[in-house]
């Protein structure tokens, strides 16, 4: 089943893609964990200024692919990536590409809120500081405040910027993490199940936030909640056993999926 490269994908050449610039082009990407072939001959175009959702059952490779977009997989021993992923036409797996620079352009928000055990201010200021983005102290303060505002957290924390970020509620922590990612001025934001540790209200606030900022970023979100994918994304990709099964406009995916596996998955008929 593995022999053919470039397996056909039931894609409807999404309408959304035609309307926007393409930010990420992946072609024939393979990811291996040791002997395990985690992503198989994956090709996908992801548009800018839109939210793309990756859905699929556990272990289908959606998180793996997400983490290969900012080369977070580099930190895992025995992980190997072949093929190419172009961000603005530049292959991020090129030898001369600087990973640190890449990660400044491709922010990431993780499954579990993971603020640094430092003050709220320091959490957001860390990125700009190490990249030397802020010219002065007032500059830095402005970046922090703006990032917190964009993450719609500022009003809640403006009186306690010096308090530890770990003292916030789960949802606030996750928004702090988003603010931290935004502070470095990324073009792409990867979100790896950002709401899985949150209650529905906190999740809704994150979704609202994603909706607000999606005009300015290329956002990719991995989620286990199909409803969430349907709500926040414009494009949806369905992964199964390391294959990209279907990729298309979210509106189509959740009403009339093309592939039977997609249909079975989203209607709750799997396995």
């Amino acid at each position, binding site marked *: 089943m593995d022999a053919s490269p470039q397996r056909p994908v039931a894609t409807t050449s999404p309408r959304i893609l035609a309307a926007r610039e393409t930010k990420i082009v992946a072609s024939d990407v393979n990811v291996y964990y040791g002997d395990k072939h985690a992503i198989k001959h994956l090709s996908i175009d992801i548009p800018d200024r839109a939210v793309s959702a990756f859905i699929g059952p556990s272990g289908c490779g959606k998180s793996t692919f997400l983490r290969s977009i900012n080369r*977070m997989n580099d930190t895992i021993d025995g992980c190997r990536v072949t093929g190419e992923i172009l961000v603005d036409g530049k292959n991020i797996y090129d030898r001369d590409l600087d990973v*640190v620079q890449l990660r*400044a352009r491709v922010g990431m928000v*993780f499954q579990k809120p993971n603020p640094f*055990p430092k003050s709220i201010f320091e959490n957001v200021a860390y990125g700009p500081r*190490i990249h030397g983005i802020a010219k002065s102290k007032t500059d830095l303060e402005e970046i922090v405040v703006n990032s917190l505002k964009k993450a719609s957290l500022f009003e809640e924390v403006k009186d306690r910027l010096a308090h530890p970020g770990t003292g916030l509620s789960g949802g606030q922590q996750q928004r702090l993490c988003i603010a*931290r*990612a935004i502070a*470095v001025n990324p073009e792409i934001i990867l979100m790896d199940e950002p709401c899985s540790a949150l209650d529905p209200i906190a999740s809704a606030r994150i979704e609202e936030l994603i909706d607000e900022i999606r005009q300015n970023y290329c956002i990719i979100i991995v989620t286990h909640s199909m409803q969430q994918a349907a709500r926040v994304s414009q494009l949806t990709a369905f992964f199964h056993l390391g294959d990209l099964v279907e990729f298309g406009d979210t509106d189509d995916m959740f009403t009339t999926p093309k592939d039977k596996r997609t249909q079975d998955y989203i209607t709750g008929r799997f396995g």
Partner: protein
Amino acid sequence: MIDKFQKGDPARLAKRYSSERRFQAYGAAALAISVLFLAYLIIDIGIKAWPSFFEHRVVLQFNLDPGKIDFTNVQKGDFTGLIKDSLRALFPTVTDRADKKNLTALLSVGAADDLRDQIVANPSSIGTTVNAGALLSDDADLYFKEGFSSTIKTAGKTNLQLAQTGEEYLFSGDTSQLAVGQIVRTNGGALRITSLEAGIAKAEALMVPENLNSLIPGSWDLLSLSETEAERSIDDRSTVWLEALRDKGLIEKHFAWRFFTAGDSREPELAGLRGAITGSLLTLIMTLSLSVPLGIAAAVYLEEFAPKNRWTEVIEVNINNLAAVPSIIFGLLGLAVFLNFFGLPRSAPLVGGLVLALLVLPTIIIASRAALNAVPPSIKEAALGVGASHQQAVFHHVLPLAVPGILTGTILGVARALGETAPLLMIGMVAFIVDVPKGFTEAATVLPVQIYLWSDLPEVAFQSRTAAAIIVLLVILFCLNAVAIYLRKRFERRW
């Protein structure tokens, strides 16, 4: 009525509960036994050590005759003679040469130095008469510390007549209170009963009485000693002198600061721990300054940066094994490498510190690695996610979070080093060193070695010193642990 809670065999359930209770009882018993042993050990050592923290002095009057003591050079004065004269002045009846020597032997050899120091500090006292305490020798000191349990004083209640025939004295009258071996003190003298026959008690003079007046109740008393003279470290005559001094109110008890401020000595009453404490301190500084940076650097490299291959695996296994190597092997290593090969000075804290650093390095590396490993990976991922380099992620986030764990491991390792004896024996830190070391290359000894040395000495008073030194070592170790706990609580951060 059917009991719905009754599921399964009730006997089996009872068995389960009883086994649980048994297990808890075993645990409690084990705990109780260890607490008991520990309490016994500490109380025993404490009781033994207690006397060492005090010393006894006899207050003597000194006529600081400028003829005897040179104004211009106080250091050269004959203070030994001065002290001996002062003591003998209290016992004018002691004329025999041997007795005189025995009398002055009650004073410590350090008493003269004390007096000298006192006068050097206060030269204006020369030419006047001063009262000053003179340190007693270890045996005399011990006599007072033993709580006089061996000497029983009884007031004389009967009338006795005293007569002298040559060297011998005769008691007649109501001799019902007397017994052989007892000492009758009267008329400024002390007489030991040698025989008691038909109402006549024969006695020999330990201290010659001033007259032969008859004894009436209240004018004499009786010293009875529970052990024979041979079994005691102090003879009857000395006992009489000491009792006389005490009766005159000349014996003073002081806290023995000397124990902490003096170096080692062959005389137990003069021996102190300052040399050993300083030696331990210097050795620890050496150990810490070497093992902490090395250990943490190694741990950070191995945990965060080293590739996982066969080499790092071998290194890892070896580090774990090194932690289990007997400490004396490290001593041999130190002897071979630092002393014989590099030719570093023997008995020096420098070498001791090097050897102990090698000893605790594996412990620190293992503890630090565990602490680094315990930091949630999400923190590192977060840092990498905003574009921190691997090194920035480790040094800005992972390492600070691991600090409490590293500190705890380090302090425990250092505590182990502090208590280590064997490797230091191998590099010659076991020598008898009187002077307090002033640098890393001077000969020194450390606390545990000092304990080992003292425990080996024959003088009875050293037993107590040994126990006291153990207490000091334990207190230092407890303090280190307390610091470890404090630091951990202080730096611990939740995430």
